[in-house]
């Protein structure tokens, strides 16, 4: 990559609509991604406005000229979000059909077709077997490909949801004319726009002039608290700068005139969207395992096939024969049923989770959740309800919890406080009972609704004047008329330090006393205490004006204040906070017990973050480490890594969307499997990058739901615990399924070796192998996913080094059970041969004559002579017997694989799906053998009933052996030798 500085000019160039000719679209996309990952560095919000106007070539009154705007629009493109280059579904389908085993199966199919073509050109009457086999292999490939396609393909609509956040029209001044119907997509840098309450900010703008302009930055910070924006001095971090309003944020109150700083992809939102859409989520742990396993298997199969092919060609086997057993080796070695089994098992669990109100969008995520080692949780809306509530009430020298305030109903101070609160709160109750207004105002009103009727109070105290809140005086005051005694009351609400300074007296239960310095100290202490526990503290005060000075017809003037705003009576404090969801504390405790680390990553203030962290149990001691966004920016990745290593409980506060992503990436680089929970737009990049992105279904933004892998439909954090449990269970059960599938591999590979080494007629055909892998084995393998957990999975620590396919499992599958199956199969094969006159001794070395079409009179051990067609039929019968032996022993294996640890007799046959699966396996085997068309196509044979029983001694041996093995494992006998050998 060329070294590109991340200065605005080059970024702007990078996002120009015309394709940069020097870069391929893929490079461009990754360059853009790298640029987006960096924090925004700009000074456009710091320079004096006039300088900025000069830079942008605009005029604060007249705006841009139409001509210039058009020019800029043509150069930089529309003010929209550019979607990332997406792979079409055809490409994804093509890719899923050519990954892992698929390539090998394609090779096999190709070899089959080649063999058929060779035969077709050489013979007058070619047999269609190779053609059929080729077609079946292609079908297998397509089926497996579709399964992995189903799992891989997620149509990404992320950009669409982002774009839906953008308004259509904006008020824009150009050539000195205000046009309220300017399409937002036509805005360019330097445009002068006006934003009113209710509007959505059409681009990143710097405020020129404003009045009471409040924006809800929740789409960027996740905190739905309206913040004041005005033409004041900016701070270095543009995201926190009080003179900038961002694209897509909503104006809650007031109006503002601003100049557009940047548009489209370069805005703060554009960066978040660009990141979320362009990030490639890491491969899930399961996918990683499967990938490496498939690679190993394929390599092994290829090597074996290649080696055998060379060897047999050297020995002197004809080319056709060599092709046939190379195909045999490849098909036998590949567990074709693996991908469908995994997909089906995960789908089943996903369906189970849907019943628990948990939508699993990405199947792998459910297993990844079981493997998850770290959860990075957003605070607002995820851990908390994202709803401000009054949490504590402080009246002289006593802090009351909101739930225990009822005992104070008759307290005079409390009554005054409710009156003051009802009159000061700017929230209004609409006709439909909904409360509208600022979050904290709503909280106050909500609280009062529970204890009093604020509407009656408001009726009894008509408001005559109001001084609205502004950032300069930090209070809000209103003057009301007390209808009972016809006196005016001044009521004030605001930051405690400002209010307390204006107070002369304080209300006690017993009456009013003057506010002494000591008492002030007490008030300050109480304020600090509440603030430290993460609450937003509001103080209330009132003053009854005497009728002499302020008669009933007194005109209150709020511009030139003609009434006293000091010497007030201090009433009390209200502590507001966004309370944690009820279930969260318990859920986090359980998650931590399960060995998963929980960290908080929030855009909120450190104090609030810490308070919530303590409350929900993310932080349990003073060791909890709090890192703010500013500190994080100064950390090198090594220091961040070290911090993650050193401290177990970490809270990240005041983080930007990119920093959330940075934290996730840091965790992942340590080898953690990271789950991110979040609900806001600002979480989108982190959700996307995380191994498991979890979004909230009710409160979550569209964008976060679109990006997430899992959506909690009822916002219940506790579902994550269930998810972890299910994820771990499915991993355990997947191991059983994989083991089950692998066991039948050994009796599929070894016949080919017997064929080559002992020159016996082929004991198991390729078609039959496919019948086992994708036919009879499928249902039982999938149904093992329904097994209940063998032990409490939540007692374990997350698996980190535990593999899906371990050496122990391979030993168990190939070395023990698989060999027994092989023995059973060979026994059945030899018996069928012997019953027809070919004794085992006679078979060894017979292959060359056996497979020779020209030999029409091959003599068996009893002197009978077999034509080619007759002995091929016998071969099919023997192969069918081998197949049936595999089926019978695999049914036993289904029972064996039910448990890895417990005895079968403890568990029983309670898994009905598995029971049905075993019956299905039997019926399918019968169908394959006895339906004329099928048996011809799949090269099986309607075998005698007695041959079904040949494998039974081996099945019994397998069962007994495995029960013994599990017994040894349970009791850790022989120093745990069996545990080390084969406890997978």
């Amino acid at each position, binding site marked *: 990559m060329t070294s590109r500085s991340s200065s605005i000019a080059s970024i702007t160039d990078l996002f120009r609509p015309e394709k940069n000719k020097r870069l391929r679209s893929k490079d461009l996309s990754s360059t853009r991604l790298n640029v987006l990952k960096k924090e925004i560095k700009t000074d456009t919000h710091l320079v004096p406005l006039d300088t900025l106007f000069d830079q942008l070539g605009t005029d604060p009154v007249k705006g841009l000229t139409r001509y210039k705007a058009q020019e800029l629009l043509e150069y930089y493109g529309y003010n929209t979000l550019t979607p990332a280059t997406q792979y079409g579904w055809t490409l994804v389908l093509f890719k899923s059909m050519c990954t892992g085993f698929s390539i090998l199966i394609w090779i096999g199919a190709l070899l089959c077709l080649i063999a058929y073509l060779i035969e077709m050109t050489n013979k007058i009457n070619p047999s269609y077997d190779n053609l059929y086999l080729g077609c079946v292999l292609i079908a297998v490939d397509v089926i497996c490909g579709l399964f992995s396609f189903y799992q891989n393909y997620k149509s990404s609509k992320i950009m669409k949801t982002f774009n839906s956040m953008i308004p259509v029209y904006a008020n824009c001044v150009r050539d000195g004319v205000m046009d309220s119907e300017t399409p937002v997509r036509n805005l360019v840098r330097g445009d002068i726009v006006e934003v009113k309450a209710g509007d959505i900010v059409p681009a990143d703008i710097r405020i020129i002039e404003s009045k009471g302009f409040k924006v809800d930055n929740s789409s960027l910070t996740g905190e739905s608290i309206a913040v004041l924006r005005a033409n004041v001095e900016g701070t270095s971090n543009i995201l926190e700068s009080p003179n900038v309003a961002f694209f897509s944020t909503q104006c809650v109150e007031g109006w503002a005139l601003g100049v557009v700083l940047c548009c489209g992809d370069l805005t703060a939102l554009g960066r978040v969207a660009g990141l979320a859409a362009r990030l490639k989520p890491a491969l899930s742990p399961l996918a990683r395992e499967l990938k490496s396993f498939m690679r190993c298997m394929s390599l092994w199969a290829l090597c074996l096939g290649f080696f055998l092919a060379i060897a047999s060609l050297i020995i002197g086997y004809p080319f056709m024969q060599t092709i046939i057993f190379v195909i045999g080796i490849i098909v036998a070695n590949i567990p074709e049923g693996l991908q469908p089994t995994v997909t089906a098992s995960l789908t089943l669990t996903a369906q189970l989770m849907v019943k628990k109100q948990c939508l699993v969008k990405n199947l792998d995520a459910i297993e990844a959740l079981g493997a998850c080692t770290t959860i990075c949780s957003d605070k607002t809306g995820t851990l908390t309800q994202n709803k401000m509530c009054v949490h504590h009430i402080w009246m002289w020298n006593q802090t009351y919890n909101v739930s225990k305030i009822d005992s104070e109903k008759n307290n005079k101070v409390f009554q005054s406080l409710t009156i003051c609160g009802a009159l000061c709160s700017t929230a209004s109750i609409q006709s439909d009972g909904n409360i509208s207004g600022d979050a904290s105002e709503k909280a106050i009103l909500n609280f009062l609704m529970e204890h009093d009727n604020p509407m009656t109070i408001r009726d009894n105290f008509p408001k005559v004047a109001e001084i609205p809140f502004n950032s300069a005086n930090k209070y809000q005051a209103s003057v009301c008329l007390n209808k009972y005694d016809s006196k005016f009351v001044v009521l004030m609400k605001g930051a405690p330090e400002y209010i307390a300074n204006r107070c002369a007296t304080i209300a006690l239960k017993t009456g009013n006393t003057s506010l002494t310095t000591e008492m002030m100290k007490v008030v300050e202490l109480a304020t600090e205490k509440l603030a430290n526990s993460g609450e937003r503290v509001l103080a209330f005060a009132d003053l009854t004006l005497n009728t002499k000075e302020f008669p009933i017809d007194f005109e209150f003037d709020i511009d030139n204040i003609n009434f006293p705003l000091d010497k007030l009576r201090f009433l009390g404090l209200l502590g507001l906070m966004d309370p944690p969801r009820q279930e969260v504390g318990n859920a986090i405790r359980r998650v931590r017990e399960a060995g998963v680390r929980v960290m908080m990553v929030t855009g909120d203030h450190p104090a609030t973050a810490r308070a919530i962290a303590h409350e929900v149990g993310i932080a349990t001691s003073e060791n909890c480490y709090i890192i703010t966004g500013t500190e994080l920016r100064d950390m090198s990745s090594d220091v961040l890594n*070290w911090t993650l290593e050193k401290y177990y409980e970490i809270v990240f506060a005041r983080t930007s969307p990119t920093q959330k992503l940075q934290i996730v990436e840091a965790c992942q680089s340590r080898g953690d499997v990271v789950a991110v929970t979040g609900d806001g737009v600002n979480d989108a990049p982190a959700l996307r990058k995380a191994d498991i992105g979890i979004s909230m279904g009710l409160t979550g933004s569209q964008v976060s739901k679109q990006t997430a892998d899992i959506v909690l439909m009822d916002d219940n954090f506790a579902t994550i615990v269930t998810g972890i449990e299910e994820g771990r269970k499915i991993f355990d059960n997947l191991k059983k399924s994989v083991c089950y599938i692998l066991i039948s591999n050994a009796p599929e590979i070894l016949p080919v070796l017997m064929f080559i080494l002992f020159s016996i007629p082929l004991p198991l055909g390729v078609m039959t192998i496919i019948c086992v892998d994708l036919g009879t084995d499928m249902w039982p393998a999938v149904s093992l996913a329904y097994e209940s957990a063998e032990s409490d999975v939540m007692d374990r620590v997350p698996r980190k080094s535990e593999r899906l396919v371990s050496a122990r499992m391979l030993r168990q599958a190939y070395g*023990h059970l698989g060999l027994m199956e092989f023995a059973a199969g060979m026994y059945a094969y030899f018996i069928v041969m012997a019953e*027809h006159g070919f004794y085992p001794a006679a078979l060894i070395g017979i292959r060359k004559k056996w497979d020779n079409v020209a030999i029409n009179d091959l003599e068996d051990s009893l*002197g*009978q*002579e077999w034509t080619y*067609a007759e002995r091929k039929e*016998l071969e099919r019968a023997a192969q069918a017997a081998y197949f049936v032996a595999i089926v019978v022993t695999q049914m036993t294996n289904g029972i064996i694989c039910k448990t890895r640890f417990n005895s079968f007799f403890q568990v029983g046959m309670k898994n009905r799906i598995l029971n049905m699966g075993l019956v299905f396996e039997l019926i399918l085997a019968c169908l394959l053998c006895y339906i004329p068309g099928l048996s011809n196509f799949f090269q099986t044979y309607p075998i005698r009933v007695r041959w079904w029983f040949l494998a039974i001694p081996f099945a019994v041996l397998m069962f007994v052996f495995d029960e013994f093995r599990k017994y040894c494992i349970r009791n850790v006998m022989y120093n745990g030798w069996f545990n080390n050998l084969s406890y997978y």
Partner: protein
Amino acid sequence: MTVKKRTSDLTSLERFNMYYREKEPPLTGSQKVKRFIWNPKTRQFCGRTGSSWSKIALFYFIFYSALAILVAICMWTFLQLLDARQPKWQLERSIIGTNPGLGFRPTPPEVASSVIWYKGNDPGSQQFWVKKLSTFLAAYKRDGKKAGAGQNIHNCDFKLPPPAGKVCDVDISAWGPCVQDNYFGYHKSTPCIFLKLNKIYGWRPKFYNSSDNLPKDMPEDLKEHIRNMTAYDKNYLNMVWVSCQGENPADRENIGPIQYLPHRGFPGYYFPYTNQEGYLSPLVAVHLQRPKTGMLINIECRAWANNIKYERLEAMGSVHIEMLIE
């Protein structure tokens, strides 16, 4: 809790370095392989110590022995249950069925080939086939010294079927030109091919023993022969007839006249085959009297009996031979 600034916090960096110093330096790939093959620290070879290896070897030895023993016991028990003289499944119940195929000698050496190819003027190439035939016919040579084998041989005739426990003799000396002394006719480019009917335990042919209901596709010369035989001696009709002819019209011209020796078929007294001691398959020597040289001749020989079905693709009741004399 106070949050420290750690912009250029040296102490934390130092601690960071210390933390990582405790870990061993990562091994390179080749070191890892070496360490895996032989780890001197733990005295492990391929990840296991000597005692571990011996234990695992012992386990697998016992395990596989037990498995092998089980297979052996099962196999032995089963084979004990089988009759050593006759197949478990016979005729219709066996896959071999009731439709014997035909075999021919000499068999070509190449796999999947049925071409008898030699050079008429090259004794070396003839020798190969002659040798093959004499090896094949060695079993038919009556050798008085061979006790046991020759004991129950009986000279059968159509009027003289073999008594129980005896088998019929196949006299190879009376086959005119198709004898070893005559190099089976190979040196004169008039080669003999020997046909044999596949042995099927207990199979009895149903002869075409009257000239009335002969199948339509039977060659005319065979029909003629059967009619002649009917006139000559009805006993001779108890025969599984044999016919050989070129597969295509051109082959039929090239093949020339054919002589069948000693009979034009397999006499009925050889049947049924019941795995008798010393049983010899009856043979028919097909003598190509004037085959065209330098040309590949496709010959199809068929056996004719009421219960022999014919299907060319599956080679049922027939055999395909190619002959090329240069």
